[in-house]
């Protein structure tokens, strides 16, 4: 029974292995079509270099060829990956496709490959061997899924910039995924060669690459069983058609294509989306130890002592094509401070914060943050130094759950677990558990414990803002930067956020935050810096700022333009949430009214919260 279907079943395994080589990069959000080239190089060099079967049994040559093939595939991936890893999306796909085509043409014109005639190879591979190889590959990706490395790849797929800010070295991770893909493609090439008896360079053409990609995507590129399902589908559909007596000719490819279209249109996430996905809750949520002792498995960060300089900006400026977004900023932030950054829209607040967190290189001046010179340091190194941030427009990892988002945030303080997970070492389980508990603690701290299993994209706007804060907290930062954390929150939530910030400061964190809710800023901060037209116009304690005529002018215009009663400062100080609770909450909508006491916002018709 099984033997009758040996050939199609072997091809299911081979197709699945090839699809895994696409899956390996798709999971990191990369689209590569070079796998056929890797497989081709691996197949020909493996077969050419492996010993003849007559000398030493059957299996040894196959194993030697596999080792050679995987090494060649990985090596080719490094050679191709180093110059192309900065390319994105379709560009990477086409560059790798170009590589594969070049390989094909070169091999076609080489003597040692037999040119267009190809190379005769003994059939050594059996059904059992093929499925064993597939099992090993599938095991690899299964264990990768919930390791720190696997999560980092998914984070890169969802939002590269946010992943960088969480301290993930995107370049290295992408290259690692690419090399894995090359090795798996190499494995496929060799196995294929030892099954089909005759290989020619044209077996590994564009069509083959597309076939592999289709298999991976149909199966589902976000779940490790996807490639196997996809390969079963792609291989078995023609078989079933033959079995039920559909004539050869045009109907078969037509029906196969039609089915493919139906699957892709009606099953987003591929066939794997039919399988239930276990939602992972923080097992043994710890219950009591809210902010208790830190588990020993997480690297603890030592915050700079109170009063030490955390941020030192010296004449920092940023220019966009002649427009000075930020100009000549001198600013020092000391450990333990809570600094509020306010100013009208377009004052350069976000640009300044982007420079401090290393996302935007300054065009003049110098900035040192936690001992790192930003601008010349990659973002993930700045994050590693202890800077963590949220973004003005939420940049969450949308297809991951809230808990997984926070787990990625803990990338820097958790330990790599993938290799130990492959070996089922108990220490890996302990580390994962510690990371989970820490993530759950961060979620609880922002009040999102109940939403742990919810996809980030399904959360409400305010919850997304809080999830971003939890994610930023998970890296145990010394300097926490929040870009408009209270946007979209009502006054009750904003008051809670204010309390959270105060308690974080009590833990020794230094906090820098941009906020339009001036009442909240004055309430929460130890120091306020006011920016207008890219320059600091005032800096001081909340009381000094509230009384500063320059600030009032920046917000409301000069007194000639509009009578100012002088009660603004007192009013806002009296009410931390920025306005009478019975009035409309101080969110963006309120800001449209220039006279609204608590918000001190100039007229602004742009919906700042629009995404």
């Amino acid at each position, binding site marked *: 029974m099984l033997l009758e279907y040996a050939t199609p079943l072997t091809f299911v395994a081979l197709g699945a292995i090839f699809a895994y080589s696409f899956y390996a990069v798709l999971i990191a959000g990369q689209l590569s079509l070079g796998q056929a080239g890797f497989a081709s190089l691996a197949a020909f060099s493996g077969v050419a270099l492996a010993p003849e079967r007559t000398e030493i049994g059957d299996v040894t040559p196959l194993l030697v060829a596999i080792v050679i093939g995987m090494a060649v595939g990985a090596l080719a991936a490094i050679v191709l990956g180093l110059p192309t890893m900065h390319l994105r999306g*379709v560009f990477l796909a086409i560059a790798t496709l170009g590589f594969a085509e070049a390989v094909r043409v070169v091999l076609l014109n080489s003597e040692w490959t037999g040119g267009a005639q190809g190379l005769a190879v003994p059939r050594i591979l059996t059904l059992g061997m093929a499925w064993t190889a597939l099992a090993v590959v599938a095991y690899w990706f299964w264990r990768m899924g919930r390791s720190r490395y696997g999560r980092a790849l998914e984070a890169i797929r969802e939002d590269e910039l946010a992943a960088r800010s969480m301290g993930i070295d995107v370049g290295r991770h992408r290259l690692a995924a690419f090399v894995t893909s090359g090795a798996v493609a190499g494995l496929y090439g060799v196995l294929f060669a030892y099954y089909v008896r005759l290989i020619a360079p044209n077996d590994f053409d564009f069509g083959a690459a597309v076939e592999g990609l289709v298999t991976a*995507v149909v199966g589902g590129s976000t779940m490790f069983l996807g490639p196997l399902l996809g390969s079963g589908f792609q291989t078995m559909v023609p078989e079933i058609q033959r079995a039920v007596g559909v004539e050869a000719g045009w*109907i078969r490819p*037509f029906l196969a*294509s039609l089915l493919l279209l139906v699957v*892709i249109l009606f099953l*987003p996430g591929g066939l794997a989306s039919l399988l239930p996905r276990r939602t992972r809750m923080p097992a043994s949520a710890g219950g009591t130890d809210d902010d208790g002792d830190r588990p020993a498995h997480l690297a603890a960060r030592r915050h700079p002592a109170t009063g030490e300089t955390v941020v030192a900006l010296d004449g920092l400026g940023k220019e966009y094509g002649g427009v000075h977004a930020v100009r000549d900023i001198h600013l020092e932030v000391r450990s333990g401070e809570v600094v509020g950054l306010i100013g009208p829209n377009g004052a350069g607040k976000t640009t300044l914060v982007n420079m401090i967190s290393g996302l935007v290189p300054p065009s003049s001046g110098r900035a040192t943050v936690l001992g790192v010179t930003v601008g010349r340091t990659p973002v993930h190194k700045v994050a590693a130094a202890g800077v963590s941030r949220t973004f003005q427009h939420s940049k969450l990892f949308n297809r991951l759950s809230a808990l997984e988002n926070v787990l990625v945030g803990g990338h820097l303080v958790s330990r790599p677990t993938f290799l130990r997970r492959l070996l089922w070492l108990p220490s890996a389980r302990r580390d994962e558990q510690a990371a989970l508990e820490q993530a759950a603690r961060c979620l609880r701290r922002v009040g999102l414990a109940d939403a742990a299993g919810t996809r980030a994209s399904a959360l409400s706007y305010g919850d997304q803002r809080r999830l971003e804060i939890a994610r930023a907290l998970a890296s145990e930062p010394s300097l926490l930067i929040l870009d408009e954390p209270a946007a979209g929150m009502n006054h009750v939530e904003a008051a809670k956020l204010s309390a959270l910030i105060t308690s974080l400061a009590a833990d020794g964190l230094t906090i820098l935050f941009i906020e339009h809710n001036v009442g909240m800023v004055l309430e929460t901060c130890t120091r306020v810096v006011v920016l207008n037209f890219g320059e600091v116009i005032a800096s001081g304690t909340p009381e000094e700022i509230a009384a500063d005529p320059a600030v009032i002018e920046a917000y409301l215009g000069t007194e000639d333009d509009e009578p100012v009663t002088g009660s603004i400062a007192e009013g806002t100080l009296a009410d931390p949430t920025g306005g009478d609770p019975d009035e409309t909450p101080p969110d963006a909508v309120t800001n449209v009214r220039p006279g609204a006491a608590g918000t001190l916002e100039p007229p602004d018709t742009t919906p700042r919260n629009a995404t």
Partner: protein
Amino acid sequence: MQQLLNGIFIGSIYALFAIGFTLVFGILDRLNLAHPAVFAASAFVGIELVERVGLSLWAALPIVFLFGAALGLVIERLAFRPLKGRADAHFAGLISSIALAGMIIALLQWRYGPDTRRFPAGSFPGTRFDVGGAQVTLVQVVILAVSLALMVGLTYMVTKTRLGRGMRAVAENPAAARVLGVNVDRITAVTFAISSALGAVAGVLFAINVNTAQLGMGSAIELKGLAVIIVGGMGSLPGALIGGLVLGLAEVFAVQYIGSSWRDVIAFGLLFIILLLRPQGLLGARKVREV
């Protein structure tokens, strides 16, 4: 001189094909991999129109143009519109268009069988010109003229007309365009129609140039089309024109000086160098990523 002209003729077909490709990419940020199937289908339809219906070549071209446009509408409707708003739309669009291409090719096989087909003998006038010592057929001149006319017309449409303005608005920001009253769905559909119509004409011209049509002719030009739009710059129309001509010339001269079996290495070597040195292509604009 002869080589130069040959390069320009074949390059103009590449350009025409690639412009259809790049038009959709520029506006939707998606690759339509059913484009090569349109290319092949229109070549067969063109041959049938001349052979069975007995139309002249010149009458067949506009009909093929309309046929391509209709096919483009079908592709947009079946393979792209249902994916709107999906997180994985990028990959899914590739796959759904591949699936649709498979269906189109299967239907071609049903209608025309798996064999190579040709225009009936005597379909084109054999007039030849002598240009600077090189032989040029009337057919080649027509290929060049039609390609150029379509490209000029398209450029005019995109830059000057209301429809073109809508297309550029959608390319820039679909959400904003919708808010401002642009019918994004209609613009998208029209873009697909135009794109496929151009691909269809390219298919017929290609079939005329080499006087054969095969089921697999689309995949051969697909790779070249991709190379052309990268070299020229994704989404750039003049870039696709220049890229097509550069590729056509590079191929012809590679065959001349290096040997025909190495022709494709030249094309992809060129592609690779461009990608590394100038990822946005010769005329593409680099998109700035915002925080």
